[in-house]
């Protein structure tokens, strides 16, 4: 008798749970659904949701004509990849120094590194522009990424991770005469993979969306990332054209979304051993 009652409450609980999950999901996906709606329908249906409204591909055509998406895409991929790779390399080296080596002033320097978390390069744009000028790097993809390539957050995360790796592994490797780099490659890097992934996600996401600094430092189509290229759709004088903006959105996010759908399980599984411990 009691188990029956328990079963009933359990399924009600379940039902509530499911309802919550799906309600939240619909609310969260609304903007994307709206984007899909407007991208495939003519502008007249931007605010009207009639079931049998005519479909059209014209918005995609118009959006495509207004900006060289392929090139902007390439620039953005090169940008976030180069930033991430350098961040990880520099971060690994620095984190190892903080985690495993003893030297004077270690804590002071580490605090300095932590402070970088608080200082957003966005505020230091004018000074950084002047530095880039002196280095002759104006209007290059390298210039967009350079101020971000040393990431305090990355160093901090990796240090925490490295500190949890048992020192016995260190000693074993040392006894075999391994140098620091071999040690890193064989022991530390593989064990810290989940942290690399987690940070990678944070970094790519942040730099994919960065706008102000890339706007200031780039001049040409060959260096401009997507965010700046897309700003041409955010025009104010002639009224917002949602269908075209959203067609442009689908062009730029479509591949990412499809990638996420297809590789979802692998993506999440790679976080399985994450434990940001």
């Amino acid at each position: 008798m009691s188990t029956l009652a328990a079963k009933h409450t359990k399924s009600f609980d379940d039902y509530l749970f499911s309802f919550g999950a799906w309600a939240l999901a619909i609310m969260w996906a609304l903007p994307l659904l709206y984007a899909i709606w407007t991208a495939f329908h003519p502008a007249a249906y931007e605010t009207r949701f009639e079931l049998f409204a005519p479909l059209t591909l014209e918005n995609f055509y118009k959006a495509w004509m207004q900006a060289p998406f392929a090139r902007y895409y390439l620039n953005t991929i090169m940008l976030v990849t180069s930033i991430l790779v350098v961040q990880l390399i520099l971060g690994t080296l620095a984190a190892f120094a903080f985690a495993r080596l003893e030297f004077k002033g270690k804590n002071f320097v580490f605090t300095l590194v932590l402070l970088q978390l608080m200082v957003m390069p966005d505020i230091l744009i004018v000074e950084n522009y002047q530095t880039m000028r002196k280095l002759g790097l104006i209007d290059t993809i390298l210039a967009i990424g350079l101020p971000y390539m040393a990431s305090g957050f990355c160093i901090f995360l990796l240090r925490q991770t490295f500190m949890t790796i048992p020192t016995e592994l260190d000693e074993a490797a040392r006894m075999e005469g391994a140098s620091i780099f071999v040690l890193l490659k064989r022991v530390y890097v593989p064990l810290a993979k989940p942290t690399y992934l987690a940070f990678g996600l944070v970094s790519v996401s942040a730099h994919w969306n960065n706008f102000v600094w890339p706007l200031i430092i780039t001049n040409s189509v060959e260096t401009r990332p997507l965010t700046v290229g897309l700003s041409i759709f955010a025009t104010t004088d002639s009224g917002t054209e949602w269908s075209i903006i959203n067609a442009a959105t689908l062009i730029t996010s479509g591949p990412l979304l499809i990638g996420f759908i297809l590789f979802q399980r692998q993506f999440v599984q790679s976080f399985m051993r994450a434990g940001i411990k």
Partner: protein
Amino acid sequence: MGKLNQQWIYAWLLLLPAMVILLGFTYLPAIETFIDSFFSTARGRRPSVFVGWENYERLISDDVFKRVLWNNAIYALVTIPASIGLALAMALFVHSPRRGVGLLRMAYFTPTVLPLIAVANIWIFFYLPTIGLIDQIRALFGFSAQNWIGQPDTVLYTMIAVAVWKEAGFFMIFYLAALQAIPQPLREAAAIEGASRWTFFKRVTLPLIMPTTLFVSVNAVINAFRLVDHIFVMTQGGPNNASNLLLYYIYDVAFAFWDTAYASTLTVVMLIILSVLAIGQFFFLDKKVHYK
């Protein structure tokens, strides 16, 4: 002694590349900024002069600054718990096996993938009075139109909603990973003992995901100050500073008014606030974290 020296050399060699970049693009400019806050702004025709605490005094009597601090406090106080809480809820929803979990995951993650220009304009549409989506839905229930973004008492909350929407799905990924790291035997043992879902959650899950919560909340705090991009597109801080936030104000002062000295002053204040928050966070949450 020799060994220590060697370690010292190795350490600095390892640190050098990172430190050079940090120095050149973060520390030196930051110090310049700090120094600038004690001078007046140089305009093309007038050089900058030392003014001591004048800029800070101006800060204290600046109405916009006070409003901005107040707004940012509300903004942070709501977005941080809301995005973390929702992220955890989403992770829980998606973690348990059910039909359509892949769709759910994608739905929660979409905000991270959409570019800001689109997101901002889509939300503008949602908030439009009468013809916007929210008002259209409300009209079905007989509610009258509301100018959500155009009224000072609602605009800040519209910005908060957009921020929470953007953040929660992103944090969900980290919670999902943490949840999946909770060993299955623990769950089974709890089920055998007849522990309810809620008890299991409170006693086992929460403590085990504390490290993730620390990671996520550090991000959330920084984002509460950093994520102002939607303000640029949607409200420009208005109406009458009702949705103005600290970083947006700094940007306005620095790149619209070109009052670089005052912008430096505001930046110094922001740095102090963030440092205090960061240190506070580490101390508070660090105690609760279980490292293996």
